[in-house]
């Protein structure tokens, strides 16, 4: 088209016109236009696989577009590497960080720069970096080693790296997916400080309320096409955004039948376990899950949720206490024992635990079924049956890929999660532990996962749902336990109706370490 003839708009820092990017079998970006103004936070929304990361990777010089042009400050620029992009003032923070764990924050920030060349005068740079952090509200100790930092702090290091390189445009790909609620607030403070100082931010997220809260304008992609271009975020409702993303109405409320709990399926009794660093992570934790109910586990990330799911699935040593599944002890047994006794596990870490990145979708979906007929046939694998299964799951779970022999490393975050869920649910488990199953999923997909979890419950399975999203827990669970520093602070039942303020308040207090009895006692005391 005649896009290049239009006069450049001086208020724009970046203008992408008619970007086309194709992958084998997928048109990830189909003539996408995108405009970023000076000093704005621009939300980029879209369902899984819509092409958001692809578009931003083009802007960050990671991919080269097949058609279309990019203008920076009104001038057409040629991007052929991330280094080019940074030279033009554009930097991206990816969802998985690229830091060297054994080095300090300062060393990581300086890594790959030409200056300093030979002699590292680290203390000087420590100071510089601390100042830079100060300016943008990024609190992190420049001398700390990366491995000592929380995920939130590591993200700050990634942002610092970009700021240190002097970028004017910062792209953040799903930055909040890895953060705890307080950390999200901190990130927002930083982003606002950045735009106040004239920088611009592109913010990718699936969480509509976040986008409404932080972004000035929003662009929505659907299947590689723009469905809303730079609309003011104040002017659109959550419902409208959701419709623009998925192309249909999304029902936020779930339709939940009354709970008919049966026998206790999973029983966790007085469990103690250490984390990877050898420090106590679970300290006498007990809970149970009955057949036909969803039990939520609420808590701020890092309070022992991951360790608990690992102890249950047999991947972590249980120091004391035990876990039983339908009467059989599963703790300190092999992972295989749990699998053979109907346990499904959706791990928190999709890429490092839940999947084998270089193997195909087919190979990934048979991970727990390859031992048995019809896939296994006297020690040989029937790859036709396996491929058929994979194709069925691809259909049923809406996994968007050209074919099932694609290595899963090429899948978008949401599609990978669907592969894992498809694998776990299709095993018809009697018990399922799902850790953050909707993390990184779009609203439509979340709705789908919620429906799947509820259908598990209706089919009589016991489900333990670990999540940091209180809203999700409250809408799906029949009971909620709250975990804090490896202990259960209390248990509350969730009625079918809208949860009242009090309940949310109570759970919030438990999440910060107040046991339920104490809250009740004080509540009673204050009423007296």
């Amino acid at each position, binding site marked *: 088209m005649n896009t290049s003839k239009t006069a450049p708009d001086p208020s724009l820092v970046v203008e992408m016109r008619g970007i086309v990017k194709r992958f084998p079998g997928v048109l990830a970006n189909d003539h996408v236009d995108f405009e970023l103004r000076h000093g704005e936070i621009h939300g980029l929304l879209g369902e899984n696989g819509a092409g958001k990361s692809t578009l931003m990777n083009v802007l960050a010089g990671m991919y080269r577009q097949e058609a279309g042009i990019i203008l920076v400050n009104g001038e057409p620029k040629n991007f052929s590497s991330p280094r080019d992009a940074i030279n033009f003032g554009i930097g991206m923070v990816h969802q998985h960080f690229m830091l060297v764990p054994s080095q300090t924050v300062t060393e990581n920030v300086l890594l790959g720069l030409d200056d300093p060349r030979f002699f590292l005068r680290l203390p000087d740079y420590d100071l510089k970096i601390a100042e830079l952090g100060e300016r943008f509200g990024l609190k992190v100790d420049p001398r700390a080693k990366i491995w000592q930092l929380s995920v939130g702090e590591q993200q700050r290091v990634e942002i610092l790296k970009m700021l240190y390189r002097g970028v004017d445009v910062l792209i953040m790909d799903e930055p909040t997916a890895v953060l705890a609620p307080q950390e999200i607030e901190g990130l927002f403070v930083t982003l606002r400080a950045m735009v106040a100082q004239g920088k611009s931010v592109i913010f990718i997220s699936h969480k509509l309320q976040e986008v409404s809260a932080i972004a000035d304008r929003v662009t929505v992609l659907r299947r590689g096409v723009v469905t809303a271009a730079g609309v003011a975020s104040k002017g659109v409702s959550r419902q409208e955004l959701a419709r623009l993303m998925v192309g249909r109405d999304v029902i936020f409320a779930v339709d939940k039948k009354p709970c008919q709990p049966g026998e206790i399926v999973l029983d966790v009794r007085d469990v103690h376990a250490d984390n990877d660093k050898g420090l106590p992570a679970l300290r006498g934790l007990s809970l149970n899950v009955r057949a036909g109910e969803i039990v939520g586990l609420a808590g701020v990330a890092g309070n022992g949720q991951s360790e608990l799911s690992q102890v249950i*699935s047999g991947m972590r040593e249980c120091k004391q206490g035990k876990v039983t599944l339908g009467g059989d002890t599963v703790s300190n047994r092999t992972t295989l024992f749990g699998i053979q006794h109907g346990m499904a596990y959706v791990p928190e870490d999709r890429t490092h635990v839940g999947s084998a990145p270089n193997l195909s979708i087919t190979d990934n979906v048979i*991970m727990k079924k390859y031992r048995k007929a019809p896939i296994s046939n006297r020690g040989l694998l029937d790859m036709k049956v396996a491929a058929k299964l994979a194709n069925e799951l691809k259909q049923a779970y809406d996994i968007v890929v050209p074919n099932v022999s694609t290595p899963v490393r090429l899948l978008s975050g949401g599609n990978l999660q669907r592969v894992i869920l498809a694998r776990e649910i299709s095993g018809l488990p009697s018990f399922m532990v799902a850790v953050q199953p909707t993390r990184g999923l779009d609203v439509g997909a979340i709705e789908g996962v919620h429906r799947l979890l509820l259908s598990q419950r209706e089919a009589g399975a016991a489900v333990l749902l670990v999540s940091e999203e209180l809203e999700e827990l409250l809408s799906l669970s029949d009971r909620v336990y709250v975990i804090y520093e490896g202990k259960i602070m209390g248990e509350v039942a969730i009625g079918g109706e809208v949860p009242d303020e009090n309940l949310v308040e109570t759970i919030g207090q438990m999440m910060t370490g107040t046991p339920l009895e104490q809250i009740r006692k004080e509540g009673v005391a204050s009423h007296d």
Partner: protein
Amino acid sequence: MTESTSLQKKRAAWRIRIEPHLNEPPPWYPVLVSIGALIIALILGGILILVAGGDPIRSYQHIAKAAFGNVGVLSDTIVKATPILLAALACSVAFRMKLWNIGAEGQFIMGAFGASAIILTPILPAETPRWIFIPVMMMAGMAAGAVWGFIPGYLKAKFNVNEIISTLMLNYVAIAWINFWIFGVWTEGGFQMTAKFPENSWLPRLLDYAETFPVFRGLTTHFGLVIGILAAIVLWLIVYRSRWGYEIRLIGDNPHAAQYAGINIMRNTIWVMMLSGALAGLGGMSEVTGVVHRLQTSPVAAGYGFTGIIVAWLAKLNPLVIILVSILFGGLILAGREIQPSGVPKMIQGIILVCLIASDFLLRYRISIERGEE
């Protein structure tokens, strides 16, 4: 400030940039790159020959003739390729699980020892018929190799002992071990070799059938080739079509996911190292009963286990591709022997190797040369 800008200007003239490939290269790309590497290697070699005052075209013709020129040398090439093939298969299966077994050499030697022990102890009398001798020796060779694989496998699984070091060390132990038997126990009149094996323990060779098929006259290609090709096919089936192979691939790609899928990594470590050792041992057996016909250090410990590492790697661990790459290497080794004085094939062998390994880099990185602006 000014200093740094002028510095930048100086550096900005021409730049070579190396960046990881971000887009998935199409499937034909690796093949094309490998062929390209081969051609570049030949051109480079040609230039060197030219500089040294030779005629590159004639030299290449000579090498091609020496390695593949007629049925006779082709047969010799295949004889050289056979031990490499089995050693490379051994390496490939271990590498697939990211077990860095560089002890195929030692396992190969032990396989040769195991097979020899059947004859020399003697476990079977010298007049045993061939159809009993050969299977028993195959078993013995595989078993001895498997033991040599089991040791590092067990140490790795139970005590997390680095297999690179343990397998490397065991190579030297294996040489010392057979030297002890060759010099001390089975020595043939004090020479550094054992007595010649009885003919009914030899692997059948094509020349054995020269009476019925006169074309086979003088061809030393032996039954080891069949063993090697069958082993490659079976290994392919194991890796890509069996339950066990699935476990091996899963562990190799992501051990955490394998553990999550309920796979016993320790047990697989031991089994895969044993399989790897058994394949290398089979290679040793095939060499000693098909070519050398006696246990002797230098022709057995000739570095096939190390060549196997390179071949496995260049074949991207694919058992069927290993067959082809082994034959190429067999040819180069043979040509090296045939026209030794000039040393040219050795050099070309080295150049091809360097080019192929360097081309691997091309598969992962994009190299561009550009004119800096500003």
